[in-house]
C-alpha cells in the first residue's frame, strides 16, 4: 500500500504540496535579504587594521571557465554587480584580481542567499581564503577616499572654489570694438 488517497476518518483535512509551496514562497518573499550596503560596515569593521603590516597575499586567478557554465554565469553576474556597485570597470589584470577578490568576499557574506540559489557556489566559495579581503579593503579604501574627496569638494565654500577657478583661468582679453 503506497497510496495515501484513503485518509483515515476523524483527522483534519491534510495539507497539499501546493499550499505548502505557496506558503513558503510568501514567507520567503517577506524576508529581507542583505544588500551590499548592509555588509559594507562589516567590511570596514573587520578590516580596520594596519594594512602595511600585513604580508602581501597572492590571489588565485579564478577563471569561470574552470567551472561549469552555470557557476561561471553566476560568478560573472556577481562580478558585474560588484563592478556596478563600486563603479569600476577593471581592464588590467591586477584590477580584475581585485574585483575577483571583492566578489569572493561578497559571495562569502552572501553564502546563505547564494547557497539557496546555487548550492554549488557554496562549496566553491567556502574554499576561498578570507585573507584576500586585505586587497579588497585596499580597493574599497581607494574608492572611499575618492568619494570623501568628492564630498569635501562639494562642501567647500563657493568663494574658495571661485578663487581656485580664478587662479586657474587666464584673465579675459579685452576685446577691442
Amino acid at each position, binding site marked *: 500500500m*503506497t497510496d*495515501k488517497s484513503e485518509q483515515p476518518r476523524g483527522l483534519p483535512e491534510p495539507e497539499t*504540496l501546493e499550499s505548502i509551496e505557496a506558503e513558503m514562497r510568501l514567507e520567503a518573499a517577506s524576508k529581507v535579504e542583505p544588500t551590499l550596503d548592509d555588509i559594507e560596515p562589516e567590511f570596514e569593521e573587520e578590516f580596520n587594521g594596519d594594512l602595511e603590516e600585513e604580508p602581501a597575499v597572492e590571489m588565485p586567478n579564478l577563471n569561470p571557465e574552470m567551472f561549469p557554465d552555470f557557476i561561471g554565469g553566476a560568478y560573472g553576474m556577481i562580478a558585474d554587480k560588484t563592478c556596478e556597485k563600486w563603479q569600476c570597470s577593471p581592464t588590467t589584470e591586477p584590477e580584475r584580481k581585485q574585483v575577483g577578490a571583492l566578489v569572493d568576499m561578497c559571495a562569502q557574506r552572501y553564502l546563505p542567499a547564494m547557497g539557496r540559489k546555487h548550492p554549488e557556489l557554496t562549496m566553491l566559495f567556502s574554499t576561498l581564503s578570507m585573507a584576500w579581503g586585505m586587497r579588497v579593503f585596499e580597493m574599497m579604501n581607494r574608492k572611499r577616499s575618492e568619494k570623501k574627496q568628492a564630498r569635501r569638494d562639494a562642501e567647500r565654500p563657493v568663494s574658495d572654489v571661485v578663487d581656485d577657478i580664478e587662479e586657474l583661468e587666464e584673465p579675459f582679453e579685452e576685446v577691442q570694438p
Partner: protein
Amino acid sequence: MSSEKCLKKGYLGFEASGKTAAALYDSKGEKLIIRVDINHQDSLAKNASVIYEPAELARVIRTRDKRRKLAICYRGAELSGVTPLEAFTLCCRVAIAAPERCALLADEADSLIPKSGALPEPIDAVLRRGLQHLLVPVYWTSLRPASINLDLRNGTQEFKYFGGDEPTYTDFIKRHVGPDAVDHVKKLGKYSYILKKTGQKWQEMPPLSI
C-alpha cells in the same frame, strides 16, 4: 531494505561507526525520501538533489517524475533564522502532504527534535501516528541516545547499535538492550552492529558491505 511497512528505524553509535551509512543503505529502497541534513554530511547529498529553499522542497516533490526514485538532501536549516526543528517540521509537513509514501531520514535526530516538550503538529503526527495512518517511514541516526525524543524512541521498531564504548552509550545499551549486549557493542568494528527489534532479543549482525 525498506518494505511496504512503515517502520521507524534507529541507528545509534559513535562518530564514523557507520550509522549514517547504514541508514542510507537501508533507505535505498525508498522511492521517495527526504534526507534532513543540518551538518553538511557529504554522504547525505550523494545521489540526491540538494535543496535549500523550503518552497523548492514542496515544488520538487510535487512535480517529480513519479516513475523514478527521488532522494532529496534538504539543507533548509542553513537559512538565516531557520532552526533545525523548523526545518524538520517542514520536512514532516511535506512528507505527510506527498500523495505517495515519502520517507524521512533524520540524521543526528537529537539535533532536530527536542527530547521532551510539545512538538509541532506535523512532527507529532509522524512520530505518533505514523505507523497507523501516515505513510512516513523514518530512518534516524544519533550518537547521543539519551537525548533522543521519547516519542521517536518509543515509536521505533528497529534499532541498530554500532560500536562505541563511551559510558553513557553503554549504559543506554545496558538498560534498553540488555547487559549482555554491552561487551559486544564495545568490540564492534566499523559497519558492524547489533540488531534489536521490538519484542525480540538482540542479535549480532555481520558487518555491512558498503
